[in-house]
């Protein structure tokens, strides 16, 4: 058996098939250990796969040995490889980081189910990214969504239940919209394979069902991606999920939906549908600008640290969509790099918050006043990741913002306004990060508040690893930019 050729399927079935085994483990800590090792293995597969794609170009895998479009195909190129790295990487660090925090919140009795669900999220997201079949994508979308609901509902706070329910309703509506869109396209083209669909949609690109399908797929995925104004489910879902799970989900769950959105809009629709370029720009640019202005502005006034970061994610997703909407190679490169960089900064920030919550038992800013002195290492990492989110030079966040601003300036007169918008939003980011810094370092510990001490070394080590990753990928951009430039070129290949 030649293992290399099987890498795309291994990426999915390694976490997928371990999940049932994990659900049966009844020894304390064993489910966590099994999930962490499996997740690490999946990350190793992703790294090897990326190496192969870089060396030999995109890989295709015919499931069941049936040639596409008759069978289901897996298709991994530079763009998907980058996403696979984000997903498996974020899962592995969050698991390695979160043992103590998750033990505290989830407890031992639920642990087998919880970690099985975690692995299902990983497998589902990897499946979404790796599959080359529109319906198969829906199936994996649902695996990851259902498993995500389980993760969020495992939190001890009762408000987590309402957050789960809202996410379940909106998530299902989004997935069903996507299914309607795929159905209409299938009705007009007779195929479900994405590459085949691209070839065959040209003939029917003028017809109403296809145009309506484009609308349904875009809106459905925008709901899943928490794009403004369809983000209503997201801040609360992130706020009430177990802290370590938030660090994982915030880094990659909306990213997979954005990935599909970019893939569908740019490769299937853009080259073949009349006026699609104008529609994409006209639809996404205003929403993206509103997303990063409103998202950042709401974050400034938020007192719950996790919800603040949730709204900050709304803004960051706005940047990514702007990169998509400008439809130039430069902007798209910026958007794709930002997918990676945002995962880095958000997972570091949420891990720092998890450390704070682990000791202070709360994520409300007033309860965290003065924590900077008691937990210097945790807050140091928070500040470092915060700088990356603002976009300070020498951090990862700077790289992607730089590309986006350059792309805006290239875009013409409207571009200057857009670049101005990005700057305003970044200033707002300075404001809310500063708010945390001020509370942590310049305010006294409130009377009668819980005595704080530094988080456990195991948590700190992983936190700092990711925080330093923000610096590393701000300086050495070969891997991330290399993949992103190649991905952007392929995506816009026959489009512009």
């Amino acid at each position, binding site marked *: 058996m030649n293992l290399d050729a099987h890498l795309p399927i291994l990426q999915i079935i390694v976490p997928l098939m371990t999940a049932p085994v994990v659900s049966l483990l009844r020894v304390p800590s064993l489910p966590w250990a099994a999930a962490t090792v499996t997740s690490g293995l999946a990350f190793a597969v992703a790294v090897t796969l990326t190496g192969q794609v870089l060396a030999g170009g995109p890989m295709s895998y015919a499931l069941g040995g049936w040639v596409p479009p008759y069978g289901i195909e897996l298709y991994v190129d530079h763009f998907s490889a980058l996403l696979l790295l984000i997903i498996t990487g974020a899962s592995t660090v969050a698991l390695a980081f979160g043992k103590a925090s998750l033990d505290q919140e989830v407890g031992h009795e639920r642990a087998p189910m919880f970690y099985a669900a975690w692995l299902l999220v990983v497998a589902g997201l990897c499946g979404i990214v790796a599959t080359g079949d529109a319906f198969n994508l*829906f*199936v994996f979308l649902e695996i990851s969504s259902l498993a995500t609901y*389980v993760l969020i509902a495992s939190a001890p706070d009762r408000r987590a239940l*309402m957050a789960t329910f809202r996410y379940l309703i909106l998530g*299902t*509506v989004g997935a*069903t919209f996507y299914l*309607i869109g795929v159905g209409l396209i299938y009705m007009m083209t007779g195929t479900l394979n994405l590459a085949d669909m691209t070839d065959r949609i040209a003939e029917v690109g003028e017809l109403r069902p296809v145009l309506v399908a484009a609308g349904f797929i875009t809106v459905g995925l925008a709901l899943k991606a928490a794009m403004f104004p369809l983000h209503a489910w997201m801040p609360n879902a992130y706020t009430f999920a177990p802290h370590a799970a938030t660090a994982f989900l915030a880094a990659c769950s909306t990213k997979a939906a954005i990935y599909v959105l970019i893939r569908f809009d740019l490769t299937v629709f853009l080259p073949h549908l009349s006026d699609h370029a104008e529609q994409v720009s006209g639809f996404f640019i205003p929403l993206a600008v509103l997303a990063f202005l409103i998202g950042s502005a709401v974050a400034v006034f938020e007192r719950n640290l996790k919800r603040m970061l949730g709204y900050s994610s709304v803004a960051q997703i706005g940047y990514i969509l702007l990169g998509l909407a400008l439809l130039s190679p430069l902007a798209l490169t910026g958007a794709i790099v930002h997918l990676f960089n945002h995962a880095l900064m958000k997972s570091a920030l949420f891990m720092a918050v998890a450390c704070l919550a682990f000791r202070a038992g709360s994520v409300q800013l007033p309860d965290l006043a003065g924590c900077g002195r008691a937990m210097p290492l945790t807050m140091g990492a928070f500040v470092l990741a915060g700088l990356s989110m603002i976009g300070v030079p020498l951090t990862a966040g700077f790289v992607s913002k730089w590309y986006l601003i350059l792309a805006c300036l290239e875009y013409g007169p409207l571009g200057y306004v857009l670049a101005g918008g990005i700057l305003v939003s970044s200033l707002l980011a300075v404001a809310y990060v500063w708010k945390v810094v001020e509370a942590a370092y310049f305010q006294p510990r409130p009377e009668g508040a819980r005595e704080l001490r530094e988080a456990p070394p195991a948590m700190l080590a992983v936190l700092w690893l990711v925080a330093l990753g923000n610096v590393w990928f701000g300086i050495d951009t070969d891997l991330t930019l290399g993949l992103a430039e190649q991905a952007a070129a392929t995506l816009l290949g026959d489009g512009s």
Partner: protein
Amino acid sequence: MEFLALYNYWVFAVLLLIGLYAVVAKVNLVKRLIGLSIFQGAVFLLYISMDKVEGGTAPIFQTADGAGVFSNPLPQVLILTAIVVGIATTALGLAVVVRIREEYGTVEEDVIEDMDADS
């Protein structure tokens, strides 16, 4: 008869509309889940309506060589999967609703919102 040739698709659209309204407008959580299943049921109808071939039968061969006119098997396969996904979502949703009822004592969303605003 030409007029009725698209009737299935209109019913699909109307059912979708009804389901979506219930999902968005209702405050009772169980009712929203019922609306969600109407919404999903509508999509099943869309797919199955396109599988019909005039004069065809269900795609199960009666003779060894597979002669005859058959309707399209592929949308049926897709919807078999979608039905299962639908019931899985419903089961999970109901479990969450039961827990909400235990924690809050009600399943009316506006009442729950008031309780959360107080806390």
